[in-house]
């Protein structure tokens, strides 16, 4: 760790403007001839690297080091509802195996629920070395205190170096609680994970709500924790013969107490889920009104596509919140996605850039969506889409 120090004597009229401007967060203040860093600082250290020479300096301070050799293995939290395992779990097992092979670690799963022992066997078809099962009637429903207690028990017992959690509503509730109990780091919605030789997990995610990727590490604490969305990583093939073992763990009755009582569980109505769509027509700010959605609907119908969109369109009420692609919406990985009038903020792109084929139509030739699209079409959606619909209709779609 460390802190930013300003060498005040090197600040002068000619470089102060440059210094203030270099901070993307407006966190450098100049008052009464003195430079101060305010609480807006994200410690990106841009001011050290790109600011006027010799002004800002980063000073390392002594920190407690963790003995990394005591923490081994990569664990995956098994996301499930009443024993039905969420497919993000298999995707994370695939990633965990990749990461584990670099440092010769085992891959673990931790499975918390009721009447799940049979279901745990399924995980052994995906190359997990050991599944730790917490099976109690008190663990039937996800409740934060009991599930955190089980995770705590697992971590103390097994000491995994890294834990991957699916960024579902359950995972996003559980992971931060567990990370805090161990006073360790947690990186949300990682899109890339890599492993260093020294067992540090390299966690990469879009950051600061803008067009930036941040590479994050957690070098002085263990376990390292990351959440990953569904449809970001690839699930391994299911193997015919299971391998690995199942270990049943017990929790003291004290840890099964909760201030929460689940009164009723209703299955959501089966509704179109954009995460499962094979073809998507996505719309952005270029769509101005309900009326404009008609041509989008025509195109979607021809391609048997679902309609999805960006955050501004949700805010404008043109598409429902469940159809939002992006960091604050859903991640999608269809065979085809057509982005109509979408500029391509990372917020959005991070939710769709793993799609097989990406078409984008945008008037602005500099739109960043063109960095992502396989086929970037510089033009007006109001000219192209109706003509395209006509063309596709003619050829008997």
């Amino acid at each position: 760790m460390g802190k930013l120090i300003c060498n005040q004597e090197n600040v002068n009229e000619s470089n102060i403007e440059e210094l203030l401007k270099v901070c993307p967060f407006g966190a450098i203040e100049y008052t009464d001839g003195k430079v101060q860093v305010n609480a807006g600082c994200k410690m990106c250290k841009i001011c050290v690297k790109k600011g006027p020479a010799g002004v800002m300096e980063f000073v390392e301070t002594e920190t407690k080091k963790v003995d990394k050799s005591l923490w081994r293995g990569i664990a995956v939290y098994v996301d499930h509802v009443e024993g039905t395992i969420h497919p993000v779990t298999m995707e994370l097992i695939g990633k965990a195996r990749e990461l584990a092979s670099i440092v010769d670690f085992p891959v673990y799963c931790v499975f918390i629920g009721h009447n799940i022992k049979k279901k745990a066997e399924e995980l052994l078809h995906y190359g997990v070395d050991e599944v730790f099962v917490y099976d109690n009637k008190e663990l039937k429903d996800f409740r934060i205190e009991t599930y955190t207690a089980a995770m705590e028990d697992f971590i103390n017992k097994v000491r995994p170096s890294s834990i991957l959690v699916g960024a579902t509503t359950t995972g996003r509730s559980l992971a931060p609680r567990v990370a805090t109990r161990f006073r360790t780091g947690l990186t949300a919605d990682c899109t890339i994970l890599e492993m260093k030789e020294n067992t540090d997990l390299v966690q990469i995610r879009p950051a600061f709500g803008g067009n930036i990727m941040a590479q994050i590490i957690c070098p002085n604490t263990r376990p390292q924790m990351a959440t990953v969305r569904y449809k970001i990583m690839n699930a391994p093939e299911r193997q015919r013969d299971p391998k690995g073992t199942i270990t049943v763990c017990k929790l003291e009755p004290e840890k099964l107490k909760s201030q929460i009582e689940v009164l009723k569980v209703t299955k959501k109505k089966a509704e179109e889920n954009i995460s499962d769509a094979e073809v998507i027509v996505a719309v952005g700010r270029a769509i101005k009104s309900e009326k404009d959605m008609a041509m989008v609907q025509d195109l979607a119908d021809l391609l048997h596509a679902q309609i999805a969109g960006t955050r501004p369109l949700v805010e404008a009420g043109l598409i429902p919140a469940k159809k939002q692609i992006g960091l604050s919406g859903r991640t999608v990985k269809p065979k085809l996605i057509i982005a109509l009038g979408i500029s391509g903020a990372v917020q959005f792109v991070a939710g769709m850039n793993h799609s097989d084929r990406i078409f984008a139509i945008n008037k602005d030739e500099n739109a960043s969506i063109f960095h992502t699209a396989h086929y970037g079409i510089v033009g007006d959606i109001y000219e192209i889409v109706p003509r395209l619909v006509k063309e596709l209709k003619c050829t008997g779609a």
Partner: protein
Amino acid sequence: MDILVCIKQVPDTSKVEVDPVTGVLKRDGVDSKMNPYDLYALETALKMKEHQGGLVKVISMGPPQAKEVIKEAYMMGADDGALITDRKFAGADVLATSYTISQGVRKMGDFDLILCGKQTTDGDTAQVGPEMGEYLGIPHITNVLKIVEIKEKSIIVEMDMPDTIEVAEIQFPCLITVEKDIFQPRLPSYKKKLEAKDKEIKILTINDFEDKDDMKYGLNGSPTQVERIFPPSINNDREIWTGTGDKLSLQMASKLKELKFI
């Protein structure tokens, strides 16, 4: 009942870009606003107050100019508010931020309920709420869609789970994070604006906290470190088409056919 709402000031634009040549972050304008998801949390608190009585307080953490969001909360009807701000908090990650806010919460009094928006639009992590719950030693429920019933010592809520909707009862004190659209946020009122003109905004610094150990805050208290920031990778397998609407629509139609989507 007494309710505390956590709010944050976020940039009004998501236009943060990296200059491809210099690698320097560019940010156009400095317009800020209250995190839109927090408006739903605040509205939920105000609705509860209308029915149950009690006080609604707000707390925020950020640079001094984040006072603006507290003022905005006053204009919507919050009774009291504080801003946590200190240079020592610079560079805080989620864990350090959650610890800092929980320290601030303890200075604000005792609460039956702490409300947060489901996430912020700048960090997008949705982690600070649950982490605060752990630091404060109270249970939490995230993604609350609906308040079903408020009892004397508990609250019944509907929560959004991956494939189900669950109705759960949670004892006070507790923390919940609410989904967008739980209630329609009210607009700031002119009358409240006048009333709030000279209303005090408490400032909390590390010196106000029980725990003054500066190794627990800011960068020092942050287990995660940003190693580097960089522009997202550019897809190299791509082509750009230009021309008239007629030409482009034809070209696109034939490509879609060639790829067998039609």
